[in-house]
């Protein structure tokens, strides 16, 4: 606890100093601030969001089980890789040379994280190959990522704000995960390594946001938070409607379809196999979808 307090103090100091430097000094100072900031954040824990503290039992349930742990790691691998590719796209599209370099480094980090998760998931799977982890059930939700952000046409300030919020949330959540895999030093080491990168990402996105949009960077961060919340709501609603739709279709499947299924099976038995002649007039109706 004293360590937490110390790290929080360090972070607060750096934040305050950073604001001062951003307002008053040269690029060199800003650069120095960034490096200090990165290093001090790297020593601290990510700040855990209240919702994640609240969901700790769920996280413990997920990480406590071997199959779920493997699936979660493999899902993270996909999310990090996809996120890396999206950031790579941002690097290709931004007109800002500095951001291009930063995005590129960020993307390389994310792609590496994807590999780390994939390799660890595969290594765990290798230990108990008889388990049918991959073939039963869908992967668990992967956590953070770039959601459905369209990189094309997105201005840099909005992307930076989005990335900052996403990385911050990820750092907080990975802090919890790191503690929950205490029994698994290799996985814990991966989270520690990734946490260091996430803190760097969190910081550079914020400082660059202040550079790109000095007059309203705070507003952008709040907008990004709101947008993230809205997307989360959208996903829940979509999942709910999909589940309701699926249930209705399932009911119809068992109530309405049996007689048609019987007819279809009867027709199938009569259907010849092998070559079927194609009627010459099949393509005579170019407007038809049948």
């Amino acid at each position: 606890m004293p360590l937490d307090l110390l790290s929080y103090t360090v972070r607060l100091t750096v934040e305050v100093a950073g604001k001062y430097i951003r307002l008053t000094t040269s690029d060199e100072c800003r650069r120095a601030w960034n490096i200090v900031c990165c290093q001090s954040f790297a020593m601290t824990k990510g700040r855990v969001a209240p919702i994640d503290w609240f969901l700790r039992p769920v996280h413990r349930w997920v990480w406590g089980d071997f199959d779920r742990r493997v699936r979660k790691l493999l899902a993270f691998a996909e999310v990090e890789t996809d996120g890396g590719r999206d950031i790579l796209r941002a690097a290709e599209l931004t007109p800002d040379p500095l951001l291009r370099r930063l995005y590129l480094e960020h993307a390389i980090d994310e792609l590496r994280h994807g590999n780390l998760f994939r390799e660890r998931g595969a290594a765990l799977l290798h230990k108990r190959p008889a388990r049918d982890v991959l073939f039963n059930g869908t992967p668990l939700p992967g956590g953070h990522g770039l959601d459905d952000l369209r990189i094309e046409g997105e201005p840099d300030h909005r992307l930076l704000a989005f990335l900052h919020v996403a990385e911050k949330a990820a750092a907080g959540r990975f802090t919890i995960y790191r503690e929950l895999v205490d029994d698994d030093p290799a996985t814990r080491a991966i989270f520690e390594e990734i946490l260091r990168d996430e803190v760097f990402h969190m910081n550079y996105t914020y400082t660059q946001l202040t550079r790109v949009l000095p007059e309203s960077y705070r507003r952008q961060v709040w907008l990004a938070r709101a947008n993230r919340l809205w997307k989360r709501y959208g996903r829940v609603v979509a999942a709910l409607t999909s589940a309701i739709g699926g249930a209705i279709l399932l009911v119809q499947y068992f109530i309405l379809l049996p007689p048609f299924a019987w007819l279809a099976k009867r027709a199938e038995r009569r259907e010849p196999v092998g070559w079927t002649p194609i009627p010459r007039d099949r393509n005579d109706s170019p407007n038809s979808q049948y």
Partner: protein
Amino acid sequence: MKILGISAHYHDAAAALVVDGVPICAVQEERLSRHKGDASFPVGAIEWCLDHAGLEPADLDAVVFYERSMLKFERILTCALRAFPRSWRSFPHAIKNSLGEKVWMRGIISSYLGVPRNKIFFTAHHAAHAAAAFLTAPTRHAAILTADGVGEWATLTVGHGERHPDGGTDITLQHEIRYPHSLGMLYSTFTAYLGFAVNEDEYKVMGLAAYGRPTMSDQARKLIRRTPDGAFALVPEYFEYHTTANRSYSSRFIELFGPPRNAYEPIDLETAEGRRFADCAASVQRVLEDTLVDITRALHRRTGLPDLCFGGGVALNGVANARILAESGFERLFVPSAPGDAGCALGAALYADRIYFHNPDRAVPDHPFWGPTVDAQELARAAREDGQAVEELDESALIERIADELTAGRIVGWMDGASEFGPRALGHRSILAAPHSRATRDRLNRDIKYREEFRPFAPVTTIEMADRYFDLPPGGTRLARFMSGVFPVRPEWRDKLAAITHVDGSARVQALERDMAPRLYALLEAYGRRTGTPVLLNTSFNVAGEPIVNRALEGYSTFRRCGIDVLVAGPTLVMKRVASPATVKEAVA
């Protein structure tokens, strides 16, 4: 007439534009969206095609979709009914998927483009494949074979096409094999069983097959029954792709071949398990080849024609193509640069032009370069901003310089002109390297492409010299034009061309004509002057899991994060300056 062709919603969405009977441009959506195998409605590709031609949607005379979506929905519904009650899990998913978007193609196209509904047309899926294969081939009368996973109902069709002296064109597909009996699905089932991605990684099965022996051919033949009329039928008990969405093979399939491969485990060919997987791949490859050879022999006997046009995803199997050419009796085999679903966008537009609107036949330029053009200035600007060493050279100096770099063992990212339409890099978006040493191949797999060790690399050589290094049968250079055939490397050259010689002594060679890609041709000549062998290793300019690069900046970002030493776009050459990641972070922070 201005006709836009569209393919979408299964895999490899694309758009193509045909004006007055000649293709103007074509591009896959994945090249623009940067999502590999992007199947979404190709808004980006359509916009690019229209921009490229300077057209507005209102200028279009017709928009043609590459399949009959309601007929496809009928097949999905019928299969769900036939599999009742085992299809209870897949049914809601399939219905939501279809009714959510896919069956409403007329409305979707109309609303996206704002064109009247009476300008929207549809072709049968395999008719689009057939048109893509026949109407782009320099032949007047040819037999046609199409084979893929599935279109609406058809999975394989045979017929013929003819260009009449009066300018009229006929494409007649006479017979089909219907779902669920499908060579494409048979191969995809093994793709899934071997832990690869279906509809994407089938070529890995082909690459792996060379490491194995077809010791399980008898088991594989149990899956596919030959019918008395010379066709085939899959034995449904071994498959699940037509009943569930989760898995393509059944428990009986696993009883026959053993446990499936875990996709996250590397294939170790030193172990018995690794060799079993390689043998599985070799066995299904053998069965596929034998079946195709039998079908094409019968087709040759029936039509008596010297030429065969082959379309559909199965036509990407270069080993099978080489056997068809050697054993079917056809003298020439034409496979387009994009035989898969992306090529259907072009096929559908050409089909509408020639068959629906009866426009006179026009020769289609015999090259694959229909995509966006690279902007060398964009590369020069970005590289200078990043402090890379940039040089602008005139044509001949650049070619000589690149030849020097390749001779010195450097790996070159090569971007030139318009991008290729189709899955192969044919000299405009390529990674080039010296073909002589296995170390180069291993370096490319490990540091640049980030892919499996067993994957081979393809060579490119001049058409005049191809026969010197590769054992090409008559008609082989045509098949090698778009890298569509796998042929033996001549034994005396295998050690000297070790980076491109696969484990079984074969290579998927590209035989390059000067007119098709003059700069690459000049580079091959310059390299030949230095080393005595005008052959280069030519692999697609991308890393594993990503589409081939399109714009200069995409090539540049790939160059920056992998082991490519030199990047070229037009007259611009960039040499890599390496900085450690930590230094870069500090420098840019």
